[in-house]
């Protein structure tokens, strides 16, 4: 699936954006699902805004976002749900787990939303690798941010996808855990032949990026 941005400018950031140069805003861009893209930007320049625009969580922008040739703004709710179940996965900066479900249930929900591609035991394997096995039975609301972030990563990886969108996915993790998590993510993306788009504050060497852009 090709994701294209055509002259996209978020309306609230319009004034700021026209005054500076950006690799993304107000440009013609096309991403293929084999690309591993890093978007680097300081705080407040619209990283989360970009992620939300790509995931159709907000529509206060000018220009157009296209999934393949289809304009995202006119995609039906049903089609969008299908895309989110099978084609595009996401790790939110604010994690967005259900606090009243256990960590395992949060992951399981995403696994069974679509016809599962992974068996349930894959949850245990991934949890083992990210060292969160011990909290799987715990309510997500009671987990630390670091734990929640790893649960959110596993949740994003348990579903089928062609694109993985990550919004500062390692913000609550130490270097050792970042290494484990990025290894798992890289593995899962390669397995699916999927691309990803990662936003972060600084340059890093977590992945073998095919493209790096400044927002």
């Amino acid at each position, binding site marked *: 699936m090709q994701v294209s941005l055509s002259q996209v400018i978020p309306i609230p950031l319009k004034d700021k954006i026209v005054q500076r140069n950006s690799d993304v805003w107000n440009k013609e861009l096309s991403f293929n699902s084999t690309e591993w893209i890093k978007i680097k930007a300081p705080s407040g320049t619209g990283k989360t805004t970009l992620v939300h625009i790509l*995931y159709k*969580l907000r529509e206060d922008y000018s220009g157009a976002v296209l999934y393949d040739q289809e304009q995202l703004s006119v995609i039906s*709710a*049903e089609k969008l*749900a*299908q*895309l*989110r*179940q099978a084609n595009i996965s996401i790790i939110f900066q604010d994690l*967005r787990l*259900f606090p*009243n*479900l256990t960590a395992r*249930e949060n992951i*399981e*929900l*995403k696994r*069974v*939303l*679509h016809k599962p591609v992974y068996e349930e035991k894959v949850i245990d394997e991934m949890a083992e690798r990210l060292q969160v096995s011990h909290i799987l039975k715990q309510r997500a609301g009671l987990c630390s941010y670091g734990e929640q972030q790893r649960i959110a990563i596993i949740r994003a990886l348990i*579903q089928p996808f062609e694109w993985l969108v990550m919004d500062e996915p390692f913000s609550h993790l130490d270097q050792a855990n970042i290494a484990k998590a990025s290894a798992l993510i890289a593995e899962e993306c390669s397995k699916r032949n999927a691309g990803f788009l990662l936003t972060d504050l600084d340059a890093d060497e977590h992945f073998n990026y095919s493209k790096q852009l400044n927002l």
Partner: protein
Amino acid sequence: MLHQLLKKLIKTSAGRSRFVMAMIGLTVALVLILAAVQLQANYNELLNGKTNQDSVANFLLVNKAVTNKTIGATTLSETEIADLRKQPFIDDVGVLTPSHFKVSAESASGNMPFYTDLFFESVPDGFLDINDPAWKWDDRSQYIPIVIPNMFLDMYNFGFSASQGLPQLTPEAIKSLPVKIVIKSGITPVTYYAKVVGFSDRVSSVLVPQAFMDWANKNFGTQQDAKPSRVVIRTKDPGNPALVSYLSQHGLTTDTDKTRFSKYRQIVNVVVNASWVAGAVMFIFALLIFTLFIQLTIASCRPEIVLLTTLGTSPRQLYRFLLKQFFPVNIIVVFITLIIIAALQYFVQHFLAERNIYVQPFISVYTIAAGIAVLLVLWIVNSVTIKKYIANKLT
């Protein structure tokens, strides 16, 4: 599995007591509505059924009023009868054939001596509430079957027998009593034997089979082709103002006592209509509470539903889940209602059977069809409400 997780997220327990109240209200409403349907079905069965001994179907004897002007001229012409047949409120007209010969009856046994002069009338069998196989005659028959009004028996048992010091008689005793009939025709009286085979509430006359009457009038009649002066009409509603005004316009009178059936009908109508209206109003309120409950549930789970959608739960998945939460209880309610109606019907059947009124012991297909129709309405309301509020929450 997905539904188990959704169940944890979308709590339908908010306002559970209101939901239970709505369900109870719905049950009462459905009992009223379906009872109205069943009552109407029972009434139609009584009105049109042929199995009832004391049918509520309305048969009226109609003749010209005897006044100073009409004395001796009360026969009904063919055009008058044809006009009666044409009226929309008259289902059928049967001509009562009077006997044109003198008849007397006397006891054939010494136990119960009696003698009386009398007359016969006959009416087509379809107008008679007699199912006795003995009710037929041909020229080889041993005896003439006779039907007398129930009223005669009552008059005898409660008036005549007491005043004359005679024993009271049961219908069975009367039926077993042989009667000698003497037809006085020409010079020599002819003797036949007759037997009472039934009692009628419908036609207050001494009735013989049409076949005997035609034969006897031909052989013993003093005047041929006499015009009839009484007809029996079948109508669905003797209380129909059109019928009443038609009769009075044409100088016809009828047995006003029979109009008591129309009172029954009015009562049934009032009960059915009251039940309908009360049921329908309650149904609408139950639906309203129900939709409010769905709205409340969806509104109280708004953050969960928004996040579920963000994660890719499709509107259809949510819709299916919610419908599964709300709709099955409706099926149970309709089922319970049908069981209640069936039990009531069984009870009513027994109650009426003791009073010689026969209705089906089982609920009618119309009632079941109405139940299914109600279920369909509930499904549509559920479905539309859920779709509407899911869409609301997502935009």
